[in-house]
């Protein structure tokens, strides 16, 4: 089977009907990402910010089906979650500027709380004191393979917020489970 790692010319490539199986074995050592069945996993919320940091009640969506909300979300058993990107938006609830900061937090062995390790932070604020004025910011977290930021079951993920005590804030974290 070691022939697979050589060049694909001549006899080395002639692995016949077993070739696909060997491919699977190689990938398995990488956490089964390539070739694995993936589930689109989006975590989102619309929330009112507070001047004291607190966890946001989030909705998990797997393959675009909403799940049970919570401030700390679990990863599907025996799966990994690849964090691809994060965005936040704030929209003036009244005729005043407003702003918010969010922190993505991960606990490797329990519920994510406001003191759990931070993976990524974003903040945004509006520029004009007019109702419904919007400001937004987004960032990629992972890049192309193998540049992945991922977490594995039983880790839990949550997002905390602090900002002006105003409504109309949105956060969205997207990625996939495999």
């Amino acid at each position, binding site marked *: 089977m070691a022939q697979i790692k050589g060049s694909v010319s001549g006899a080395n490539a002639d*692995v016949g009907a077993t070739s696909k199986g*060997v491919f699977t074995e*190689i990938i398995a050592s990488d956490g089964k990402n390539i070739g694995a069945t993936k589930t689109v996993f989006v975590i989102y919320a619309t929330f009112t910010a507070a001047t004291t940091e607190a966890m946001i009640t989030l909705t998990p969506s797997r393959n675009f089906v909403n799940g049970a909300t919570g401030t700390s979300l679990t990863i599907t058993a025996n799966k990994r979650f690849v964090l691809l990107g994060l965005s936040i938006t704030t929209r003036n609830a009244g005729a005043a500027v407003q702003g918010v900061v969010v*922190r993505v937090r991960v606990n490797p062995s329990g519920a994510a709380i406001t003191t759990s390790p*931070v993976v990524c*932070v974003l903040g945004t604020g509006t520029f004009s004191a007019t109702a419904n004025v919007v400001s937004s910011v987004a960032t990629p*977290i992972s890049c*192309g393979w*193998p*540049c992945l930021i991922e977490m594995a079951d039983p880790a839990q993920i949550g997002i905390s917020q602090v900002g002006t005590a105003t409504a109309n804030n949105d956060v969205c974290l997207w990625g996939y489970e495999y």
Partner: protein
Amino acid sequence: MALIQGVPTGAHADVGTTSKGVFIEQGLDRIEGFYERVSGKPISLGETRSVVTLWTIQTPSTSETRVTFVLNRNYDLRPVGVNLNEYTPRPNMRFVCLGATAISRNGTAAVHGTTVRLRVRQQQAPGTTTITEAPPLLVFGCGTWGATINQSATTTACLTPGHPGLFTLIHPNYMIMTMIGVAAADTEVSVWGFEY
């Protein structure tokens, strides 16, 4: 079977039931080869990677000043360090820096702004890096527009666009973080990537 190296169209791809497997394997072989040439250290498909995150909240100074940060590996609740003023990958390892964000958040009802520099010195003894000795690898700034407490603004940076463009620190490269800006709270920075 050497025909497999061609584009998988037409007669070259028509190699019967075994073609799919062989074609995929060719791709894998090329990926591994790229890593060896680009990074100088092969990252095989079975490589163990550790997620590394740096995070800090600081009050900047009007002169460029080093700041400390929290360092976590694999989200461990016991950080590698909570007041670190420099970071280097573990011995014989490399750090691929994927991204970073910098935030200004008004601690009072006044606008706020900061320039953040991640600086790296190629090699020296631990604890000896000075600001002027470490060239910046990333400079970014952020500032708020509204003089309202908790108003915020962010700048984001993607340092590694994806394979094979890996932005890599090699032990014993030492990275430090500096800030200069409005002498008021808060400036917050997060940096993430992986060691291998």
